[in-house]
């Protein structure tokens, strides 16, 4: 049986990357992984870096490497606001490894409990996640 479809818009500061009807959205909030189907309860969630999957159907899935952001579910549809949404095929492993290394250096050079430390931890987690996504796509 075909599932109900709903409108999903993915917005980044650099513009809209996706706006279409889907059957399911799969992403991750700070609380945990979440799958959103049609008629989901209204929600405001904070997103963590992960692979964002938009299921047009079981076989037709659009994927993005998603940075930090927010998701808002309302009766009109789902709005995904993320700082980055990149095509996994366009991720540059070398570049990501550089960034990850830099974040690790920053992490070890500053004291725990400072904002600088929290920020480096955030960077490290983001680039690690992106690297994992890039690895899956390339293999």
């Amino acid at each position, binding site marked *: 049986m075909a599932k109900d479809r709903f409108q999903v818009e993915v*917005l*980044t*500061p*650099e*513009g*809209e990357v996706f706006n279409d009807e889907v059957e399911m959205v799969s992403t991750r*909030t*700070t*609380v945990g992984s*979440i799958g959103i189907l049609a008629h989901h*309860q*209204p*929600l*405001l*969630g*904070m997103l963590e870096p992960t692979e964002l999957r938009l299921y047009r159907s079981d076989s037709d899935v659009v994927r993005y490497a998603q940075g*930090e952001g*927010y998701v*808002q579910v*309302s*009766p*009109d549809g789902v*709005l995904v*606001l993320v*700082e*980055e949404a990149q095509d996994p095929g366009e991720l540059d492993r070398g570049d990501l490894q550089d960034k990850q290394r830099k974040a690790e250096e920053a992490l070890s050079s500053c004291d725990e409990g*400072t*904002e*600088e430390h929290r*920020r480096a931890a955030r960077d490290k987690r983001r680039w690690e996640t992106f690297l994992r996504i890039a690895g899956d796509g390339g293999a």
Partner: protein
Amino acid sequence: MSASQRDVKTRIGSVKNIQKITRAMEMVAAARLRRAEQRIEALRPYAGAIRRMTRQAAEAAGSEMAALPILSEHDSEDTIALLLITGDRGLAGAFNSQIVRAGLRAAAEHEAEGRSVAYSAAGRRGVSTLTFRGKEPQGQYVGFTDRPSYADAREIAEDLVAAYVDDKIDRVEIFYNGYISPLTQEVRRETLLPLQQATILEAGDDDDDGGEADSAHHSLVEYEPDPEEILKRLIPDYVEISVYRALLESTASEHGARMTAMRSASENAGELIEDLTLEMNRARQAEITQEIMEVVAGAESLT
């Protein structure tokens, strides 16, 4: 052809070449300006949506916002960070120099009142001018001013926010060329940190559609995690968005300024070519007259 005629002719040739280059640069700048304008437009829906979400989360959280460190002023302002946004390249009229000048003037004001100043600069021009003047910027961000990405803005914003929250700096001011039209840019000086609550909650020009629809059902909304936690991350986003917008406006302004500078350079080259052509014709005419006089004089001496 005499020596002076040949000289003028070579000069015309080189001025024509320069004119070709300035024309090409003008056209490149015009194309990039259009793209930069589109990127400013592309930010609007995102910024508007962040603003609506913040309002929704703030309503749900009650008035917990004041507790955030980036919203609270420091007790004493001893160190001021100045962020100067310039371009990576020159040949854009006063675009870069007016930012550096405004920054140095503000620095002098702060220093006169006993505060110390820490510089940060985006764009090679700003970094190198400040370094040359012995005021090497602590944060140097270069290589992207043609096409700044959100990640560039995030890096700058997070450096400044971290320094502010960790008490290394007490205030952040940003200087950039605000984009008004391709022909008009203005130097803007804004306070980035501490963030003003008013700027967050006021309805900005980013609100393309009203927030009424969202608030109608907010009592039923589920939050993951609590609205307080969401707010803690939404609010620093304003700093990132402000820096990103400043970078985008600066880029548009840079292309606008370069377009204008190159257009007037092309016009000046055109005038120069006219003057030189006139000079060359005059020299040629003088030579012809001279030759005719000589022929006439020779003919007269025979009769």
